[in-house]
């Protein structure tokens, strides 16, 4: 503390009251500016004045933390008195208190000597803001701080003294503008380009710093591990950390194909992770531009392209060729395929790689057929997710591991169609209802996460809850043991 206090001149006071505010004048007279040459601590110190940024805006200004104010030379008792408190600025006229007033007060004080300036900027320097160039001479210090203070202060007040990240701002002659509120990355999982919000709250902690940096590389899942390596195990060597990250499963998933490419002696120029991501981004741009389906172009495909040394230009050429063929396809064929849920991108995928695309197209066609069947049977609310699950679980030549036959699934849809009356009750009725997933689940074990026995019991209760016979959903054969039509529970 003593050391901090000896750094610079003390403030006379920090009085957030109207009496301390410069009187209303068209151009308030600044206090006499102490010359920046002095390296002593006996210069006059203007008061810290909370500020309303002229002409409205926020009504309150929050004072910084006591510790921070003390580090700036404010007397501890004053610092603790006002720390963190909000000062309602609505009672001040904007002509009384302007950004210029406040900035001038601060810069006068900062300009007194290098120590004051260093004390003010050091917390930001630790966060990556370079002001060292300005420390060569006192005059440079003064002019640089005058400029920087004026330009940054609106941002400081807006975002808070302790959380603002100066590295996110670009200093221009016209003020400070936030240059990097977001960062563009290629998501290595989907391969898609996306904007990542740079979270300044996260950035304010060491953990947040690690998280934000790794997120830009699609390695956010490694945050805990990397953080512990650095802070628990004390590893600070970049190579050691990199080797660790490269050994993880997450890394290998993210950078598929890279190791194979680099291990190939034919590839003299090895690629870095940065280059890998750039390639992936280029592939994905092409894929998106020509509407290739997501399932056709996954991280695995990116890995294969990288491993095979296919340049983005070569990939683009292949896609363009396929595009031209797809474009020239017979319109009637395209129309017929569209009815089967096959769009232009799918068609393009087929021309590019028929073998890879065939199961995808089959699956799409099956899904479209099931949805159509359900609609015709009277199920209006079979969602794409439900249709997709039915398709994925249907046993076929392309899907020998399927759980149900297509016939079983159609029968289940018939049952669900018959039970649609159980999905809603008359207003005022307290009878139980079931949903379409449960109805299908009575026939197809585990459908939609249901348990078959529970689905059957729920359906039975819903049936019993019908108050009058005419309200019952038709089609179920019931016995004292339960509903047999939907597959009774085991006796």
């Amino acid at each position, binding site marked *: 503390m003593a050391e901090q206090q000896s750094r610079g001149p003390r403030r006379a006071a920090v009085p957030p009251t109207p009496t301390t505010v410069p009187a209303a004048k068209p151009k308030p007279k600044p206090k006499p500016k102490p010359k920046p040459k002095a390296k002593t601590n006996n210069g006059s110190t203007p008061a810290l004045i909370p500020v309303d940024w002229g002409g409205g805006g926020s009504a309150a200004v929050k004072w910084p933390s006591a510790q921070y104010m003390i580090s700036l030379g404010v007397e501890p008792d004053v610092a603790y008195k006002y720390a963190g408190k909000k000062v309602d600025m609505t009672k001040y006229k904007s002509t009384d208190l302007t950004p210029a007033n406040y900035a001038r007060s601060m810069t006068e004080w900062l300009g007194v000597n290098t120590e004051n300036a260093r004390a003010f900027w050091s917390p930001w320097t630790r966060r990556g803001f370079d002001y060292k160039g300005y420390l060569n001479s006192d005059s440079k210090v003064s002019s640089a701080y005058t400029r920087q203070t004026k330009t940054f202060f609106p941002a400081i007040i807006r975002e808070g003294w302790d959380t603002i990240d100066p590295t996110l701002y670009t200093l221009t002659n016209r003020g400070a503008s936030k240059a990097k509120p977001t960062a563009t990355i290629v998501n290595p999982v989907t391969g898609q380009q996306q904007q990542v919000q740079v979270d300044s709250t996260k950035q304010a902690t*060491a953990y947040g710093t690690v998280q934000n940096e790794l997120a830009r590389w699609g390695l956010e899942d490694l945050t805990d591990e990397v*953080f512990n390596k650095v802070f628990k195990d004390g590893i600070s060597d970049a190579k050691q950390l990199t080797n660790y990250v490269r050994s993880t499963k997450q890394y290998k998933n993210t950078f598929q194909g890279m190791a194979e490419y680099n291990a190939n002696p034919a590839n003299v120029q090895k690629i870095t992770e940065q280059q890998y991501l750039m390639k992936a981004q280029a592939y994905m741009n092409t894929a998106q531009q020509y509407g290739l389906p997501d399932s056709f172009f996954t991280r695995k495909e990116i890995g294969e392209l990288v491993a095979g040394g296919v340049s983005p230009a070569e990939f683009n050429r292949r896609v363009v060729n396929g595009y031209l063929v797809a474009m020239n396809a017979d319109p009637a064929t395209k129309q017929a395929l569209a009815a089967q849920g096959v769009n232009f991108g799918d068609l393009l995928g087929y021309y590019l790689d028929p073998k890879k695309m065939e199961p995808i197209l089959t699956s799409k066609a099956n899904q479209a057929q099931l949805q159509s069947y359900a609609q015709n049977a009277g199920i209006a609310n079979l969602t794409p997710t439900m249709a997709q699950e039915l398709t994925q679980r249907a046993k076929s030549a392309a899907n020998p591991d399927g759980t149900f036959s297509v016939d079983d699934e159609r029968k289940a849809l018939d049952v669900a169609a018959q039970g649609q009356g159980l999905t809603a009750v008359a207003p005022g009725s307290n009878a139980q209802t079931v949903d379409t997933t449960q109805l299908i689940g009575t026939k197809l074990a585990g459908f939609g996460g249901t348990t078959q026995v529970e689905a059957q019991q729920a359906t039975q209760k819903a049936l019993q809850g019908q108050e009058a016979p005419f309200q019952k959903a038709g089609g179920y054969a019931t016995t004292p043991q339960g509903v047999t039509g939907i597959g009774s529970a085991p006796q």
Partner: protein
Amino acid sequence: MAEDNKQATPEKIHTVADLRSMAHDYAVPMSDGTLEKIAQDGLTPEKAKAFEEYIKTTAQGLYPTLAPQIKAGIPTAYLIDPYRQVAKQMLGEDHEPDFTTDPKASAALSGGVDPATGRPSPMSLDQWKGHIKTTPGFGYDQTPQAQETAQSAVRGMLAEMGQPQEGM
């Protein structure tokens, strides 16, 4: 931290302040009201001795991993002082870890494992440092030093992966 010659011993206990000092040395929280009641009818050497025994027994219960040392007469405050000092070095002179009721601080005394018995033991000072750095409640990761370390480590790693270094 009381110095050796100031350590409260039964012979030196004459006032409530002496009782408080002994309770403090063994890091046993006691209210002034209770201490005053103990001293109400005068502090005889016997009473002082009994108080010391009580404090030691309580301290052994509160800090089981330090029980043998406490039983041998080393005040708890002395035993936990290295942890306290490390915490102060890392978190600032104002930081006062509460080893009695704060689980993240008391982990210093039971977060290690005795390799011989497999039972909980006090952490090594290196472990304690790592614990402070990685336990969010201590606030270490909000310090400029931690942020600088994190930034330097991760950016160094990403530079290894080919990320161009940002120039200011």
